[in-house]
């Protein structure tokens, strides 16, 4: 396996442990954003062609849109809980 993919994979495993072990819902979103970066780079480094780059950017944009919606909903839930 390539050195670069191995470094990114180790970063991904470390960040996924932090996602599982954090209690706060809002801080989990920061670590999920890191995971989106890791997975987008691993897709491109495996499929070394333009289609891989298109798949990576579509995945990343829709992942970010989902995180935006989740953060908005967490805020509305906190407003309702009060």
């Amino acid at each position, binding site marked *: *396996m390539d*050195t*670069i993919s*191995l*470094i*990114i994979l180790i*970063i991904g495993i*470390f*960040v996924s442990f*932090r996602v599982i072990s954090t209690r*706060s819902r*809002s*801080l989990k*979103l*920061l*670590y999920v*954003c*890191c995971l989106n*970066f*890791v997975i*987008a*780079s691993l897709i*491109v*480094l495996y499929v*070394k*062609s*333009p289609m*891989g*780059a298109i798949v*990576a*950017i579509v995945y*990343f*944009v829709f992942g*970010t*849109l989902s*995180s*935006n*919606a*989740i*953060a*908005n909903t*967490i*805020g509305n839930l*906190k407003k309702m809980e009060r």
Partner: protein
Amino acid sequence: MEINISILELFKILTAFVVCWINFVVVDTIFGLPKKPGVYGAEVIGKKIEKVGGNINGGYFMGNIVCSPDASAGTLFASIFYYVLGFKGVLIGALLIYIGNRLCNDPGYAGTIGTITAGILIYVFSDVLHLISPKYFIVGMVIAILTIQGLYPQLSSKLLGHIAKKLRVL
């Protein structure tokens, strides 16, 4: 499975990490990301980071990174598209990042300009000086986003607030 890592490769990864970090932090700070949250979700994350002991402006910065593709995503996709297609790929990447910014309710300046400046930097390092190939910029950007968001959010938010004061944005 054989792994060969040399000191020269580690040095290239370190240089690429510094270039990517400076590019995305400076472009994002200039376009006002620490000043105010762009969407409501960024305000939620910023207030939570302030509650656990960070800086509110650094928190708004990190909330804006999560909720919309900004210069960090722009630098990553500039290196990805440069690795695959050359400088023309960076132009295609800038268009797709602009569409992503519009979908996430952002005017679109930070992401697109971050992509183009990253493309110019990668062009200088990789096709003019022939020092660092674009693969290393992909790793460098992943390590840079890990240091800002993945390790210690409290410390990095204080650092980002300090940089925003230094560049006279706040």
